[in-house]
């Protein structure tokens, strides 16, 4: 599998939290090439199951499908759309081109910005109430096309930086989706797996890990590994837990995760010489792993994180080698059970 190419395809898809269906067609098709039983549920989740002996343990590989976006809360008298954030870094929004998803249609727009003579203090970050989308229409016209609750995504290209690094507004968590697909790609040659596989591309992680809560209950796996992005060191970042780009997937150790699975992942990485880093956290993880662990009667869950720079900005940077290593770790984990 050509990881940068698939990642570019995934990052090009819509799917703000609550609007994941925009990514469904392509992701279902990609997933179906590895696993026969795939479907999208009513909550925006995509699930897939491998065939096999029902007595074998069920292992879930998970990444979230949604990406950060905004939601239209008002159409003002000038025809501009007021929006609410949902996780987007408001320091990066002004004068960005956006796409508004209005049912089957899309509308292009620009986030408005005040000119110098009206922006009195440019050292202050814009507030959410300062954010308005210019769709180039009067109020009456805008109201015919845009509805309150429509979702908005920042446009932004998928750029290849030097070597294996890439930049896009959507690597959180399309990098994780890509890693799961790569794990399946590595496993497709295996004659018989010791487990049955379940895959979940979950909705609404960015608004509170909601899709995974619903889907993990329905899937009821015996073991799970979630893959998300996490902070990487970069200029100005003073955060000891941050990983390093291109130095391997980060294996999470946290009170909320299964220590057995964490240790198993570390052992696999050592034995198979897969580059890895440790991400030790003091409570929960802020990822879907938290909701999967407490699904139904509890699920032993591990977390693999792909180091990422500039989280929740329109230029999130990851190293595709880290995605590859995350996929290899998951594949070896599945084989080891």
């Amino acid at each position, binding site marked *: 599998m050509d990881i940068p190419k698939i990642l570019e395809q995934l990052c090009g898809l819509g799917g703000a939290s609550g609007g994941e269906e925009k990514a469904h067609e392509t992701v279902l098709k990609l997933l179906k090439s590895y696993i026969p039983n795939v479907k999208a549920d009513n909550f925006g989740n995509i699930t897939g199951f491998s065939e096999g002996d029902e007595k074998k343990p069920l292992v879930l590989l998970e990444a979230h499908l949604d990406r950060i976006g905004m939601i239209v809360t008002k159409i003002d008298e000038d025809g501009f759309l007021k929006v609410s954030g949902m996780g987007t870094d408001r320091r990066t929004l002004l004068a960005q081109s956006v796409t508004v998803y209005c049912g089957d249609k899309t509308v292009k*727009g620009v986030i*408005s*910005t005040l*000119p110098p*003579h009206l922006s009195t203090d440019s050292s202050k970050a*814009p507030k959410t109430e300062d954010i308005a989308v210019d769709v180039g229409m009067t109020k009456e016209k805008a109201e015919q096309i845009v509805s309150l609750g429509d979702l908005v995504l920042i446009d932004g290209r998928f750029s290849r930086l030097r*070597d294996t690094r890439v*930049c896009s507004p959507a690597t959180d968590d399309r990098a994780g989706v890509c890693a799961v697909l790569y794990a399946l790609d590595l496993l497709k040659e295996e004659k018989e797996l010791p487990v049955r596989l379940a895959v979940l591309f979950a909705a609404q992680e960015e608004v509170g890990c909601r899709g995974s809560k619903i889907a993990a209950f329905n899937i009821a796996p015996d073991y799970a590994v979630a893959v998300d992005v996490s902070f990487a060191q*970069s200029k100005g970042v003073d955060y000891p837990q941050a990983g390093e780009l291109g130095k391997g997937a980060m294996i999470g150790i946290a009170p909320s995760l299964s220590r057995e699975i964490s240790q198993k992942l570390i052992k696999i990485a050592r034995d198979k010489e897969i580059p890895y880093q440790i991400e030790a956290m003091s409570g929960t993880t802020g990822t879907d792993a938290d909701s999967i662990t407490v699904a139904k009667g509890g699920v032993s869950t591990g977390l693999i994180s792909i180091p990422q720079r500039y989280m929740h900005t329109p230029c999130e940077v990851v190293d595709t080698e880290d995605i590859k290593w995350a996929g290899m770790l998951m594949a070896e984990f599945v084989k080891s059970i």
Partner: protein
Amino acid sequence: MELKETVKYLAGLNGTSGDEKDVTEAIIALLPKDAEYKIDPLGNLIVEKKGKTRPKSKLMIDAHTDEVGFIVTNINSDGTLSFDAVGGILPYVVFGRQVKFKNGVYGAIAGVPLHLLEGEGKDSQPKIFDLCIDIGAKSREEAEKSVQQGDCAYFTGEQFDFGDGFMAGKALDDRAGCAIMLELMKKELPYDCTFSFSVQEEIGTRGAAASAFSINPDIAVVLETTTACDISGVKGEKRVCELGKGPVVSYMDKGTVYNRQLYKLAFETAKEIGVQCQTKTAVAGGNNSGAIHKAAGGVRTTAVSLPCRYLHSPCCVIKESDLYETVKLAEALIERLGSLES
């Protein structure tokens, strides 16, 4: 190429102040066959276009070729690039943008994620000096293979149409003016005109100062874009000027008190030919008029500008109808200005 397409094509090219060569070359390729041109030592492209007759007053028409952008000031040991803005760019439109270098290298304008900031840091807009460009290099040595100090970086993003006849994209300031000059040159003009595609406007109207000296006109018309603030929540005179209400003719900005006779003539002309025309409700900004009117012993100068939202950003916005109205007004003005006594 149709006017609108020319605007998009030129705006898609990269040329900050001092680095306008690609833009100038593209414009030369689009000049009509009967136009004579030269490039002066600063890089200004000066084009003589014959009209039906010689004007009583020598006419100079100006637009600038440069755009705002970024310049690499240092290559750091970790492989990131320190940079500064070329021209006035507000910090609001810098962090989180993707940029491109002329050699095809892409970069992210990088800062600390919101999650990792505390207290006041969360509500502060990072300054350009606190940001860096990440091109994916792991060390200074690696970065130097792609980028050198002094290289310029440009906003990425396509030019696009949206809403009811609006156009968005970088560098509409002032590639729109350049495209209008090319459009005027396609026509059979009533008078000989000298067109100056001027460099280095964004760092202090420098190119036009030199080209106005060499052209030595009696009268100049500057074709520009000017800040419109007809946006959400802004009322009354604070809107300054509005898209869709035609070209903007100012009486005064931060660089020029415009010639009163020409100011009046512009509005009279607009009225006669049935073109909507507006003035600004604030004394703000400036353009090449500031340099031209003081050059070569003094030049009577007027500016005809397209109202433009989000100037100096990755997404400037203009209205198509204003573009065509500006061409009409500029053409009619040339006819009247050429007959004025020098």
